[in-house]
Structures are given as structure tokens and as C-alpha cells.
């Protein structure tokens, strides 16, 4: 019988229960989807790295001998080591290949060839074809590039490198754990997999004279001993240039950074979705049970056991939240999660990446069900604690006159009755008002944050591409350019130059790796201060970026000891000032200061110009010609992924906001229905009552919107200032128009929903409403 009552109550209050369902569903859907994608990236890559045995250390030297290899293998905690030769070979006749996406023939086609002796570390993941065998000829070819260019097993590719030509057949289509995040060169911004890829070959494919191994990859068995292994490699192998771990590997750190960046902002969003939804649902369930007071009292008076009554009411919240939670978990994972993961997979080469739900996601879903069930249980128990005779009566609101003091004094004395009535209703129903405020505030805030992220990223783009990089073209000079080539270039394009060098610096007991840019490109490559304004560096020391200063605890006036990578000469430089850079945390200095240092020679690697180079394809001594416009559009492309996530977050925020406002409207209407019926009986017209109803909700909406603005700024700033990777340093920037659009949007949504709900006033049956209240 009670089950029948439950079903009928569900039917009778279907709008309310549908909104409860939607709120739980949307919150869990977003939480699950975003986590499934983010954690899928993180754990999927970890699983991949483990299975394919990604290198733990990357060691460089001019040429590792066999003896070096054996020595390293013998070191404590070293499992294995392999030598590697990596060269960039040009494909002969690139025009024979067509990019399947654009339909255009390639003008240039470069393959990074990795010559190896064995493949126990960084094991290739063979999608099609044979397993790597050092005794076999052929190319173990990049899967993404093969896909983009339509290259298949059996195709022959002719490669040329410094006069050497190799004709190799594709024997397998593979992915490699050290080529997950893989770009053409340091000038590329994100992976395109169009005219550049990788291949693995046996070292035996090269003539003996080319058997040079500048790289060694090392597998360490105890990662806690990484530091010791690094030190012992440096100690035991002569002329080692660098020993770096996974964190310094572009592929590993690039992918990890992408996963962690997304995790930070979407974690904040999905957490807020859950918080707002729980608050709304819990309040709604509590009010629902309170409304059922007389029925609970009646059931108790009839002698039905408390346990049975409680069980029935607990089931309302329990079943709805369980169904919504389970659906949210799985639909979120397999739609939202898969969608984003597949988008990421366009850029990142990683096989068997799948959505992944960490226990936290299940715990949150279960937590939501428990909280809702518990609140329903406590609300019901509170009523059941009363005597049946009391519980069958409508609860008389316990109102303290002091609560309404504000409405009987000062300007409120002159306020209209509807204003007073609404104000007191707000004060009387503080929990409902609070929930409404938090719900609307939360959703508006989420929209402001999401749009604010657009603004902040656009501001970052302006700062990076209009202030710092104040040039049209950058010429990346070839490593081996001659003086005469250089003279010819600067004569034609001007002498605005820079050089970037890798440096090691001492920080406490650690030696850390970083970069130093020697800037002699005044006006074109600018250094900016805290307010993003360009300033001229002086010649009295080195400058560091603000974020690096914080992270490394280095202050202006401190002395830093540093050296250029692969050199022995250590310098002591005073930190002359701080610069602020949105995406590079490093050292800077002027050419003049650099040249005051002993044993240094300024040899530019980049030239900046504002001349039009759009029609120039090649310049002697120049490796690549980069247009700032192209870099910016590549950057825009890279941000598209983030923008997609933001669009979706905005969508969910709006949907959740919509449901919350609708739910509040129903709640507020149901609780005031008998009062509206009284007004109707007195002769108030529907229009007048609608005005009273809408007034309160509009007030709450306006206050919530205004409160949401500072919180939104704080959250956006937190995301950019603290939550994204250490290499970035930019703050929130939200345009006034963003606040205006978000606020107006929330207001319009709230107004329209309330207008829609106000139509219920037309349908109030005075007789039934007043009788119901009796």
C-alpha cells in the first residue's frame, strides 16, 4: 500500500522529482565524463608507459661506445640501457604524398629516423605488421602519419640524409611511448602528424661509418634511486653532456601537462556542479518531506511502524538519486568522456587509451546518494519524533518577531505590502533562500568563469603575440650558418636578434636545468613587467621571470651560479630584475651583459623582422621562417581543445542553472500556493499575484548574480594563477562585457522560467488550495 502511495506521490510531484533526477544526473554526468577523460589520459598513459617500458633516463654524449653501454648496464639499480641514433631525414619526392585531410601534395616531408640495436626500452606498440627485429630491414612507421598520408605496409619510402640515401619498405605500423606528444621541432606548437613523423630502423641499415650513438636510454629498476643513478652515470661515463629524466622529456611532460592542466580547471567545475546540485536536491527533499508532515502524522496515527514510514520516504530520494547517479556515471563516461578523449587522440599518439573511472568518481556518486538519503531520513525522523496528534496538524511556523524587525523599520515601513511580504518570506524561509542564492550564484559563476577563461586566454594571446612577440617573422638560423650568410641576412632583414641557450643553475644543493634567452631584438622581442608592459633590460645582471622567482625562491639582488649546458665554466650573476612571461619561465639577459662574461660568444639563433616574407620560401642560412600569424593560428588551434571543454562546461552550467531555477520556482510556488489562493479569494487578479511571485525570485536572482561576480573572478584567477602548469604565468582577465552577458543571461533565464511558472497561478483552484491547507 505504501509503495502505491509512493508511486502516486512521484506522479503527483513529477516536476519536482524530474528536476531532482536531472540535477543529480547532470552533476554526476559532468563529474564522471570529465574525470573519465582526464583520468583516462593520466592512467591510460601510465599503463602504456609501463607496458612499453618508457625510458627512465635520457643521456646525451657525442657518441656512446659499446663499453659505455656495458658500463651503464652494470651500474646499480640499472635494469637495462640501449643506444640510439636519431636523425631527421628528408623523404625524396615529397610531392608523391598527399595529405588526406587537405588533399594537398606535400612540399616537404621529414621523418625522424630512430636507429636502434634492440627494442626492450621504449618498446614499439605494433598496430600492424612485424615486431621489431634488429636483423630485419625496413621501417617501423609512425601510425598517425601513415594514416594521414595513406601509407601502408609494403610501401617503399626513399630517405636522404647528408648525401646518404636509404630505400626502405614499411614493415610495420607502430606507436612509440617516447613519441606520444611529438612535434616537428621547437618552433612547432602542437603535433599535426601531416608532413612530419617518426620511424624506427635497425642500426644495421646504416653503413658502419654512420654508427654514432649520441643518445642512450636507461631503464632504472628502483625509481627512488633515480638521483643516485644519474650521478653515477655522470661519474662513470666520460664526457656525458646531460642526464635527464622523464620530466624533462618533451613527449612525456607535454602529455602530462595537458592532462594535468585540464584536470585542474575541469576538476573545479565538476566539483562545483556536484556541490550545487547536492545543495539543491537536499533542500528540495527536506522541503518535500516537511510538506508531507500531516500524511506522515496520519500514517503514524494509523499505527504504521516508524521504520516502514521512514523507509518509504527515504526511498523517494534513494531511488531517484541511485538511478540518476548510475545513469550519470555511465552515460558521462561513455559519451562526454569518450568524446573528449577521442579529440585528444587526434594530437597525442597513444594506443588503447580509454576512459577510466577512478574510485573517487564512484565515491562521489555514492556520496551524493548517501547525502540525499540521509537528509530525507533525518527530515522524516524529525517529524516522526513528534506525537502523532501533533504531526497530523500543519506546522505553525515558529517566527520570531526580531527576524522581521528590519521590515518594520526605516525605509521598509513605507515599502509596498508585496515587498514586505516577499522580504519576510525570504527571511522566514532562509534555507530555501540560501539554496536559491547558492544555486543561481553557482551557475552564474560557472558561466562567468568559463567565459572568463576565454577572455583570459585571449588576453594571454594578445600579450604573447602583440606585446612580447612584436614582430611579423622570425628567422630560425641554421646551426651551421656562415658569417657571410649572417651578414647577408641582417643586411636585408635588420639586426634584431636573440640567442637561446640551455643552462644549468645551482639552487640550494640541486643543479637545475633551464633556459637563458639573450635578447638583442629591442622593440621586436620584448620583455614585459608585472603589468605586461615592455621594459628595457639593463646590462647589470640577469633577469628571471616572476613565477620562476617564486618557485625557485630567487629574489632580485640574489646571486645565481649558472653555466651553459655541456660547458664547464660557471658564472655568478646578480638577479637584476623580474620579468613576467605567460608561457616561459626562464632567465633573460642583454647581449651586452652576456658578452661581459668570460668565455662567451654571442651567436644569434633567431632574427626578427617586420618585413613581408610571405612570398619567400627559402633564405640561405635560415632553417625555418616562422610567421607570427601562423604561430598565432597554430596556438589558436591548440586552444580549440580547451575551448571545446569550456563550451561544454558552459552548456552544463546553463543546463544545471536552468534546472535549479525551475526547481526553486516550483518549490517556492508550492509553498506559497495557499497564500496565493487566499489573495485570489480576496479578489487579487492573477496578474497582481504573478507580480508578487516573480518579484521575490527576481530579487534572489539579482543578488545571486552580483555575488557571483567576485567569486567568479577569484576562481578564474585561481585556475590560471595556481592550477595550471608551472610553465604558465597569467592571471584572470574578465571583461566587463563578460560579466554583463553572464549576468543578463542568468537574469533572462530566471525571469523567463519564473514567468513560465507564474502561469500556474492561473490554475490555482482556490477551494482545493485553501482546503488543502486546512
Amino acid at each position: 500500500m505504501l509503495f502505491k502511495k509512493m508511486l502516486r506521490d512521484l506522479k503527483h510531484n513529477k516536476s519536482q522529482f524530474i528536476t531532482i533526477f536531472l540535477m543529480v544526473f547532470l552533476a554526476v554526468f559532468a563529474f564522471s565524463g570529465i574525470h573519465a577523460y582526464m583520468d583516462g589520459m593520466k592512467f591510460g598513459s601510465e599503463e602504456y608507459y609501463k607496458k612499453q617500458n618508457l625510458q627512465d633516463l635520457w643521456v646525451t654524449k657525442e657518441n656512446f661506445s659499446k663499453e659505455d653501454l656495458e658500463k651503464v648496464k652494470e651500474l646499480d639499480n640499472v635494469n637495462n640501457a640501449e643506444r640510439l641514433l636519431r636523425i631527421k631525414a628528408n623523404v625524396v619526392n615529397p610531392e608523391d604524398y598527399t595529405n588526406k585531410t587537405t588533399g594537398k601534395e606535400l612540399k616537404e616531408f621529414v621523418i625522424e629516423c630512430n636507429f636502434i640495436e634492440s627494442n626492450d626500452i621504449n618498446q614499439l606498440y605494433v598496430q600492424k605488421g612485424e615486431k621489431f627485429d634488429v636483423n630485419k630491414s625496413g621501417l617501423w612507421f609512425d601510425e598517425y602519419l601513415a594514416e594521414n598520408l595513406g601509407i601502408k605496409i609494403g610501401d617503399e619510402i626513399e630517405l636522404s640524409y647528408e648525401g646518404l640515401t636509404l630505400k626502405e619498405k614499411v614493415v610495420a605500423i607502430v606507436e612509440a611511448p617516447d613519441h606520444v606528444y611529438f612535434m616537428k621541432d621547437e618552433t612547432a606548437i602542437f603535433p599535426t602528424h601531416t608532413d612530419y613523423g617518426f620511424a624506427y630502423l635497425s642500426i644495421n641499415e646504416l653503413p658502419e661509418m654512420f654508427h654514432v650513438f649520441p643518445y642512450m636510454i636507461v631503464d632504472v629498476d628502483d625509481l627512488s634511486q633515480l638521483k643516485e643513478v644519474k650521478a653515477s652515470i655522470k661519474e662513470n661515463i666520460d664526457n656525458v653532456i646531460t642526464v635527464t629524466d622523464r620530466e624533462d622529456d618533451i613527449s612525456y611532460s607535454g602529455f602530462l601537462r595537458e592532462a594535468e592542466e585540464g584536470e585542474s580547471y575541469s576538476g573545479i567545475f565538476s566539483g562545483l556542479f556536484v556541490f550545487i546540485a547536492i545543495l539543491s536536491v537536499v533542500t528540495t527533499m527536506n522541503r518535500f518531506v516537511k510538506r508531507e508532515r500531516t500524511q506522515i502524522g496520519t500514517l503514524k496515527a494509523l499505527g504504521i511502524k516508524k521504520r516502514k514510514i521512514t523507509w518509504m520516504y527515504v526511498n523517494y530520494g534513494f531511488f531517484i538519486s541511485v538511478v540518476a547517479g548510475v545513469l550519470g556515471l555511465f552515460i558521462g563516461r561513455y559519451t562526454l568522456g569518450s568524446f573528449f578523449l577521442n579529440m585528444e587522440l587526434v594530437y597525442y599518439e597513444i594506443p588503447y587509451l580509454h576512459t577510466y573511472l577512478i574510485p573517487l568518481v564512484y565515491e562521489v556518486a555514492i556520496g551524493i546518494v548517501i547525502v540525499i538519503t540521509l537528509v530525507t531520513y533525518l527530515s522524516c525522523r524529525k517529524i516522526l519524533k513528534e506525537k502523532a496528534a501533533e504531526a497530523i496538524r500543519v506546522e505553525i511556523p515558529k517566527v520570531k518577531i526580531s527576524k522581521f524587525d528590519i521590515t518594520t523599520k526605516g525605509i521598509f515601513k513605507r515599502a509596498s505590502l508585496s515587498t514586505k511580504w516577499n522580504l519576510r518570506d525570504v527571511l522566514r524561509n532562509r534555507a530555501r533562500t540560501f539554496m536559491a542564492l547558492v544555486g543561481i550564484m553557482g551557475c552564474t559563476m560557472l558561466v562567468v568563469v568559463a567565459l572568463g577563461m576565454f577572455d583570459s586566454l585571449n588576453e594571454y594571446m594578445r600579450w604573447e603575440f602583440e606585446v612580447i612577440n612584436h614582430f611579423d617573422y622570425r628567422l630560425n638560423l641554421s646551426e651551421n650558418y656562415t658569417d657571410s650568410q649572417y651578414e647577408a641576412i641582417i643586411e636585408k632583414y635588420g639586426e634584431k636578434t636573440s640567442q637561446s641557450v640551455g643552462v644549468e643553475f645551482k639552487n640550494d644543493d640541486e643543479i637545475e636545468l633551464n633556459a637563458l634567452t639573450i635578447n638583442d631584438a629591442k622593440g621586436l622581442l620584448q620583455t614585459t613587467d608585472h603589468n605586461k608592459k615592455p621594459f628595457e633590460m639593463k646590462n647589470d645582471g640577469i633577469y628571471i621571470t616572476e613565477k620562476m622567482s617564486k618557485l625557485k625562491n630567487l629574489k632580485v639582488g640574489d646571486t645565481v651560479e649558472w653555466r651553459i649546458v655541456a660547458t664547464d665554466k660557471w658564472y655568478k650573476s646578480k638577479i637584476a630584475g623580474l620579468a613576467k612571461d605567460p608561457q616561459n619561465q626562464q632567465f633573460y639577459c642583454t647581449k651586452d651583459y652576456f658578452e661581459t662574461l668570460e668565455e662567451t660568444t654571442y651567436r644569434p639563433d633567431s632574427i626578427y623582422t617586420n618585413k613581408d616574407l610571405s612570398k619567400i620560401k627559402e633564405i640561405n642560412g635560415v632553417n625555418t621562417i616562422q610567421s607570427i600569424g601562423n604561430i598565432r593560428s597554430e596556438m589558436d588551434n591548440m586552444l580549440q581543445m580547451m575551448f571545446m571543454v569550456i563550451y561544454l562546461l558552459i552548456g552544463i552550467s546553463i543546463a544545471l542553472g536552468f534546472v535549479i531555477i525551475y526547481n526553486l520556482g516550483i518549490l517556492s510556488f508550492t509553498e506559497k500556493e495557499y497564500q496565493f489562493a487566499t489573495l485570489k479569494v480576496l479578489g487579487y487578479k492573477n496578474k497582481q499575484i504573478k507580480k508578487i511571485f516573480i518579484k521575490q525570485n527576481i530579487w534572489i536572482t539579482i543578488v545571486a548574480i552580483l555575488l557571483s561576480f567576485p567569486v567568479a573572478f577569484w576562481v578564474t584567477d585561481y585556475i590560471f594563477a595556481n592550477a595550471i602548469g608551472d610553465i604558465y604565468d597569467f592571471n584572470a582577465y574578465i571583461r566587463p562585457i563578460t560579466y554583463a552577458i553572464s549576468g543578463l543571461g542568468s537574469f533572462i533565464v530566471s525571469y523567463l522560467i519564473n514567468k513560465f511558472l507564474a502561469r500556474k497561478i492561473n490554475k490555482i483552484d482556490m477551494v482545493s488550495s485553501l482546503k488543502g491547507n486546512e
Partner: protein
Amino acid sequence: MEKIVELKNVSKVYKIGENEFKALDNIDLELNKGEMIVVLGPSGAGKSTLLNLIGGMDSPSSGEVIIDGENISSYNENKLSSYRAENVGFIFQFYNILPSLTVKENVDIVKDIVKNPIPTEEALKSVGLEEHKNKFPNQLSGGEQQRVSIARAVAKNPKLLLCDEPTGALDSHTGVDVLKLLRKQCDANHGANTVIIVTHNSLIADIADTVIHVKNGKIESVVKNPNPKKIDEVKW
């Protein structure tokens, strides 16, 4: 005497699922202006339905409800609201006053809908609540709350004062006070006000000018009482 209420062939049928329930069955009734009328009958007889139709809270399924010469059964929602605002004062068993408004504000509320209301102070004085005007309903006793409801109804200066079990939730002493107020309202305004009381309590019939007995949706009798008793004379 001048008629205030005329009901012609009025029926009210409620549909409950697939079943129909006839609350009023083809009734004819005429009520005079300035009288105190008591409607008696058992539960489910149709008393409240009758009151709701006269008060414009509900519309008949068939027939005509004519109030002061105007057929209100053809009124739309908006016109009915105006009719209730200008002509009818309601008093309910459970008072139906707005808990968030003070006593004075509960009476003031009619100012927004009535063209010529009686001043609030005067209405409150007439029910003896002027000292409690700044209190909220939950600070008052049941009788006092019912008096607020009467003051609110009276402030509209209505032609018809419709009372549905006005003493039902009160003790006998307080109930007598409330009935005295209703009588006072009926006698005021040179006999222009009509008070209709729906009740179970047959003792109230002694103070009425007209007593109507309702049973099974039909008017069983309309009895004129040429010498209604004074309220204090009735043994409760």
C-alpha cells in the same frame, strides 16, 4: 425586500476520475439584502459549494448565479476577481490570513484591490484589535486571528460577507464574540450588508433572519425567522 442573491436552476457537478459527483442539484434560491442567513446541513450536503458559487470562487456547471442583479456565472476569471474584490468578504474556519504580514498589513492588503475600503484603523477598532495591529498572526490566539480575518473582510465594505464555519475552530466563548461581530456587520450600513454563514452548528440558526437547510445537494427548506434571538440569549 430587495434581493441580493438569486440562484436559478444551479447545478454543480465535480468529476472525480470517471465518476461524477453532484454537489448541487438544480437548485433555486433567493436571498434578501441586509439579512443574516445561516446555511445548515450535514457534511457533503453542498453548503460550501453553495457559498463558493455565491462568492465567485467557483462557477456552476449549469444555471445562473445572480448577485445584486448581475449574472456572475457568465463572468470570466478576471471579472470574477473584480467581483470578489468589490463585493465579497470571506471568512474561513482556519482564518487564512497571511502569516508574513502584521495584523494591520493583513487588513491593509485590501487597499490594493478595493476602490473605497474602510480605513484599516476603523476596521481593526470594530473587531477590537487596534492594540494588536503590529503583531504577526502567530502571536495571536485563534479568536484573535479570526477577528483579523473579519477585519480584513469588513475593510472591503462588501455587500456580502460569506463565512464558512467561522466558529468551527474556536471555543464557545470566542465563537460568541465572533458571531457578535458578524451580526454587527450585518446591522451596519443601514441594512445594506448581507452575511451568509455556513455551519454545522444548528444553535447558530436561532440568531439568523433566514435559515436554509441543505441536504444531498438540494435545498430542503428555507425558513424565515421573524424574531431572531440575540446572541447572548442563545445557550451554547
